[in-house]
Structures are given as structure tokens and as C-alpha cells.
């Protein structure tokens, strides 16, 4: 299922940890999809002197975080911002298709940490920007057809062309207008 490189980074992740005196912190993902990453950076002379991360998630998520931390260390801020999720996946020798969307968030988390640092430098307060946005979405896949949902729109499945409604009890998504939640069976309120 995973390449040897992914398994190596999963089993022996580099740069795991927390930087108590981090210059920038970035967090993406949420436990709904199963993956959540926090990156900590230390900046010296315009370069990433140290990078640490913590990840809640599957093997791919841990491997991705580890790879990002390795790729980012010693880089300038602009170079770090140029690291993309696709580049990370490529460095890892590829990721299973169904993991590309949910687990491949490492570069995003790093970028958030850099932005956080830059915001702080500029005296702006922009805490947990990405985290707040990401927490709204409900799942990575349509509960009816299993196709993965677009990052920017978790309320609509393009494949089935149906809109979703969030269950107040379990947080799962069900087709709008259904009487009961697909996941927990509890009644759904908004019936119009």
C-alpha cells in the first residue's frame, strides 16, 4: 500500500516535537478526516533554523509531515513557501490516490507556520487562520458515492450533485431534506 520511503518516514519520523519558543506555528486539518498537523518553526537570518511537527493521523500523514520538515529545514522563507504538497508526495515516491487529499497537508501546515511568523513580524494578529476554516468541513468523501469532496466545498458532492446537511448530533453529513441522519439515525431538524 505504501512505498518503502513512506514506511521509513512513518516508522522513523524526523523532527517530531514541539518548539516551546517557536517563531511561527501553523496548524491544518481536523480529526473528522483523521488528519491534523501542527508545525513549529524557528527562524534565524531569514532561514528556517529549526522545524518540528506533531501529527494526528494515518501513516501517510505522519510520513508527509516528516518529509516536509526535512525539506524545509535550512530553507529561506520563500523557498519554504514554494514547497507544495505535490512535491512532498513526489519526494515520498508517491502516495495512494485516496490519501492525496486528506493526508497530504504537510506543506499547507508549514506555510501556515511561515505566515504566522510573518504576521507576527508585521505586528498583525492572525491566530489559527487555517484551522478555523478547516474545522467547518465535514468529511473528505461523499457518504453516498465515496468520491472525495472538493476542499473548498464540503456541502456539495459534484459526482452525485447533491447538497449536504450537517447532523447536530454526530456532525456527519447527510443529503439535505432527509428525515434522519445517515450516520447516527437521529432526526435531522431542517426539513426545508
Amino acid at each position, binding site marked *: 500500500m505504501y512505498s518503502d520511503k513512506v*514506511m521509513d518516514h*512513518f*516508522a522513523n*519520523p524526523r523532527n*517530531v*516535537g*514541539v518548539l516551546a519558543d517557536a517563531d511561527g506555528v501553523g*496548524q491544518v486539518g*481536523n*480529526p*473528522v*478526516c*483523521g*488528519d*491534523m*498537523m*501542527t508545525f513549529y518553526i524557528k527562524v534565524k537570518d531569514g532561514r528556517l533554523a529549526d522545524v518540528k*511537527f*506533531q*501529527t*494526528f*493521523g*494515518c*501513516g*501517510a*500523514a*505522519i510520513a508527509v509531515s516528516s518529509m516536509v520538515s526535512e525539506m524545509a529545514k535550512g530553507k529561506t522563507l520563500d523557498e519554504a513557501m514554494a514547497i507544495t504538497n505535490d512535491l512532498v508526495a513526489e519526494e515520498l515516491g508517491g502516495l495512494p490516490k*485516496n*490519501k492525496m*487529499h*486528506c*493526508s497530504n497537508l504537510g506543506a499547507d501546515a508549514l506555510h501556515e507556520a511561515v505566515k504566522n511568523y510573518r504576521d507576527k513580524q508585521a505586528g498583525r494578529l492572525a491566530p489559527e487562520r487555517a484551522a478555523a476554516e478547516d474545522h467547518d468541513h465535514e*468529511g*473528505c*468523501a461523499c*457518504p*453516498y458515492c*465515496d468520491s*472525495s469532496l472538493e476542499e473548498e466545498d464540503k456541502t456539495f458532492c459534484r459526482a452525485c450533485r447533491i447538497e449536504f446537511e450537517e447532523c447536530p*448530533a*454526530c*456532525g*456527519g453529513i447527510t443529503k439535505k431534506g432527509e*428525515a*434522519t*441522519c*445517515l*450516520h*447516527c*439515525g*437521529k432526526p435531522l431538524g431542517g426539513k426545508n
Partner: protein
Amino acid sequence: MRRVYLDHIAATPLHPEALEAMRPYLGEAYGNPQSLHSAGQEAQAAVEAAREEVASLVAAQPAEIFFTSSGTEANNFAVKGLALGQQARGKHVVVSAIEHSSVLNSVKALERQGFTATLVPVDRAGRVDPADVEKSLTKETVLVSVMTANSEIGTVEPVAAIAAVCKSRGVLFHTDAVAAAGSIPLAVGALGVDALSLAADQFYGPKGAAALFVRKGVRILPLIDGGIQEGGRRGGTENVAGIVGMGRAARLARLEMDGRAAAARPLRDRLLEELPAKIGHVVVTGSRTDRLPHHASFCVEFVEGEGMLLFLDMQGVAASSGSACTSKALKASHVLLAMGLDHATAQGSLVFSLLGTTTGRDVDYLLEVFPPIVERLRGMSPLYTQYLKERGS
């Protein structure tokens, strides 16, 4: 390296006696059971002998057993075949929220044909309340399907009580017993069910062999149209070797069930007790009392299931999980969410299901290798760091 297989719910090993029984039908005994010649008649006799054994396992009549290719097919056959067979009376079906995808997606297929469906909720232990089933019945209801036991949480449902409710209202009742059959005693008469699905690979039989019990006189439409095999209700040349293997495995399960359960139960109870005590922040999922004898399931907080499975596999331990990451569709288990667990906790799902050959030393080994795995994953978990911070402040 020690290898400890604790994934009964995914597949059991083929019993050597079942393999021996199958062997001729993969070789020299290749006749088609529908042929009139001796080769065909020998194959037919073998299939019918297997049918008797499978019937005996659930105390049914042989003529009430229809062989299928999988538990999934049996569930499709039951849900679609029974509902469509009754649609002149009504077009509403009732199933529990924690059914297997083969039942839930069959219901969705019915919905596309104009049926409506009600999902009955479960409690924290994953139990269906028969009173909830009763409340969900309407004049239009033609079928109720509630599983006998859930493979992810081990909970055994009050099937007889639900069947009684259905009977009193004249509604057909099917139970998906794939996770239970062969592991706990099931008698279709005492349970009062109209249909019951079972699969050989859950009781040391081969993959590709399963069956649906349908009570005599109950109307069911075929899922696979074809010839006169299985009384015209399931076309296609019989999987003779698989059916023979299922028959032998059913016989062994009937004879050895008590012994297997007696061996597994204390080991299961040790896991349910010791694992949470050893690790901390571990929730036992499913019922403690109404539970499959070989099944121990948990949610380990602050970590995700796939990482645990991969590290366990490196230590030679095979287990399974209902976390989003371990499912191809990357969705958290609908079973755990239906029980009211939050997404983060559901991601830490882990299921250990024991074989008849599992030993106390296997359990010792698991209890030795597993805590460091959790410690390692928690060490890199932002959720755990956050928890420690909140607890500290």
C-alpha cells in the same frame, strides 16, 4: 518474529478438515450439480449434504438454505429480494444505523426505486431498542433488517425481541448474522426470523461461500436471474468446492462452538480489562454483557487507528480498525458515530478479534508490544499535547 493474528472479523483461517473436504471438488470431482450423469449427481449430492450441515448450524430446514457467493450477496438478496417481493403491500423498510454497508447500500438502491427507509438509532453500547423499531413501523413497512452482531463493536443485538415486534405487526424480519453465525448459537425458529445471512469465512470455512436462510413460504425475488439452481432463486453454477467447505466448517462450528467460545471468552475479558488499565484513555466500544465471545474493541484516544495497525503489523500482530484513514473512502466508522462517539475518538478505533487457536501467551505478547506503540504515537499527537496542556493549566 512472533505472529499473532487477531483479525477474525476480516477472515478466519480455513479449517484443515474443510480444506480436505473441498479438495476433490477442486480436482477430479468436477461435475456440474445440474448434470444428469454420475459426475453431476456426485457433485449434487455433495452440495445437498453441505446444505444439510449449514441448515443444522442455524436449526433450519435444508430447503430454506440458499447458497450465495458472500455475506454481501446474501444481504443484498435478502434486503432487495424480500422488499421487492412485498412491494405491492408497501414501500417502506427499517434498518439499524449500524448495519453493514451491504445492507445500508441495498437500502439506498431500494430508495432509488421509490422505497423510503428509516434508520433506527443505537445506544452508547451499540444496542438497538426493540421499542424504537416498533415506533418506526408504518402501514407501509414491509421489511425490517437488524444485524445479529456488529463486527466492529462486538455487540449482540436483541434479535428475538425485534423479530417478535415484527411478527406481531406482520412485517418480515431479516438479520445479518455474518459476524455471529458459527460463533454463538443461533436457531432461526427460536429467534423468529424470516431470513438470516451467514458466511463461511467467519467460521473457518472458505471465502466465496455464504448462504441466506429464508423461511419456507416467504416470498423472495431472485437477485441473480438464471437457471434452476437454488430452487430458481439464485442462478449460476454452484461453487461446489466452496459450498462443500462451508458445509464441513458449519458442522465443525456446530460441534466445537462451545469449546471455541469457552477458550476465547477469558482472553477477550483479559483484553477488555487489562488493555484500558495498562494504557489509559482507552474506551471499550460496544456492550460488555451482550458481546461476541471472541471480540474486544476499543477507541484509543489521541491517536489514529492506521498508525496503530501499521506498528502492530511490524510487531507481527494483525488487527483491524474502523478509523477514517483505514477505510478506502476515508470516512470515520458510521457505527462508532451512531453510538455517539465524536470523530476524534472514533479515529482511534481498534478491533482485536480472537481465533479458536489464540492463546494466553498471544494476549501477553499483545499487552507487551501495544502500550509502547500508543506511547510513541501519542508522543507525536498534537491532540495529546493539547490535552496535557489543558490538564496542566
